[in-house]
């Protein structure tokens, strides 16, 4: 009976500690997967694996980081087993090309330029990055983990996180700017 109480406590603790990070896990899955269905599968398998292994989680430590490292491992498993590739999806240029003249984009700085892309377009360009760069950039820029936390999740050195983030951000910027120029956004050069 004690084990039953333990199980109930485990689920209750899991809900309290891990479930609040579900959106983070889902966002990471969206960043890593080609489509919503795969992202949902990855989210589910991550949370279920986390529940199974919840006994190994040290209370008081960073649960978000713990879940993200499980997600990364599950994602690697998915690629190995299902041969799901980190997709290279082109930006849907038609979305921008179809703009009406009155919607023409004007900007005076980088921030203005980036605001002309929809959230979906920014995410699609992110998805065009190599998987490890993409995930590192996601951890640092989107989830705002510090370099040390990201390094632990990725199982790499802090210096590698910094260089990888920097490289990823530079590529992302270039790709966004390149699309902006193709779309005829004035002043899109740097």
């Amino acid at each position, binding site marked *: *009976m004690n*084990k*039953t109480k333990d*199980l*109930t406590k*485990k*689920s*209750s603790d*899991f*809900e*309290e500690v891990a*479930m609040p990070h*579900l*959106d983070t*896990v*889902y*966002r990471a899955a*969206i*960043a890593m997967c080609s489509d919503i269905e795969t992202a*949902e599968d990855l*989210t*589910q398998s991550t*949370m*279920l694996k986390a*529940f*199974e292994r919840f006994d190994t989680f040290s209370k008081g430590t960073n649960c978000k980081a713990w879940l993200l490292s499980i997600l990364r491992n599950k994602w690697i498993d998915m690629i190995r087993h299902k041969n799901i590739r980190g997709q290279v999806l082109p930006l849907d240029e038609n979305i921008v090309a179809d703009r009406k003249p009155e919607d023409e984009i004007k900007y005076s*700085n*980088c*921030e203005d330029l*980036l*605001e002309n*892309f929809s*959230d*979906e377009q*920014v*995410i699609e360009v*992110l998805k065009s990055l190599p998987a490890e760069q993409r995930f590192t*950039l*996601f951890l*640092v*820029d*989107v989830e*705002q983990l*510090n*370099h040390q936390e990201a390094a632990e999740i990725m199982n790499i050195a802090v*210096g590698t996180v*910094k*260089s990888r*983030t*920097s*490289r990823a*951000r*530079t590529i*992302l*910027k270039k790709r*966004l700017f390149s699309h902006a120029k193709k779309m005829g956004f004035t002043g899109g050069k*740097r």
Partner: protein
Amino acid sequence: MNHLSENEFEDIIRQSIPEPEHLSECDRCRKLLAEKKAVANRMRSAFSSIKANKKLVDNITNQISSKEISSRFHQVGILKKIAFKKIVWPAAAAVFLTAAILGIYVVGPSPAMAARAELVKIHRHNLSDAHEFYNESDPEKLAGYFKDKLGFAPSMPALGKGMALRGCCVRHFQGQIVGSYVVDTPQGVMSVVVVTDKPESLGISGKFKYGGRAFYKSSFAKCDMVSTRLDNYSYCAVGEISYEYLTDLLARLMPEKLP
């Protein structure tokens, strides 16, 4: 002039180091930093609206719930095996007794998580356009409806402070008929589900005191829940609202009963 290294840019963006003086002198580095920050900010804002949908949350919580149940069955299986291995025929009676106890346990109440899942389900059902939902904001009419359907009228809320009754519903919960009513509040919508089970047996076990009365809290599938006992019933307030507010609401819903 030595420009900033990529690592230095990263440290500045993460605010691990203060901005060096070089930035005030170098247009190139200043512009690069601004661009990097802009990309980081845009990335963050692009993901900010992405949230797990309700169906996904439900799927995960249901699967975790089934895992909990299957683990319990698994444990029962192990206990049975041990019992059969260690107890010989003269002790068969003890085995039967054990099996009987385990049987009662297996067919006994659903796990606490399942109970909370049902509470959340009732709340979500109340928010959908369910045919069974009785749209009525008059507390007296709701009381009459409950009396007719349940044989008693649960305590009704004292309205005001931006709260309004939306209506009520009678549904099955753990094999019993229970009533619930919905209250619109400035912080969101909550359901108050009235059940006979004690909060702890529903897995709402985080005990705390408020106004001298015992309250219990828990959460499930993005919903927080607070419960308190009143006249042999547990009033469970469920919603995507903070514990503090749910507690305050429960206390204010029953002002004449609470200290």
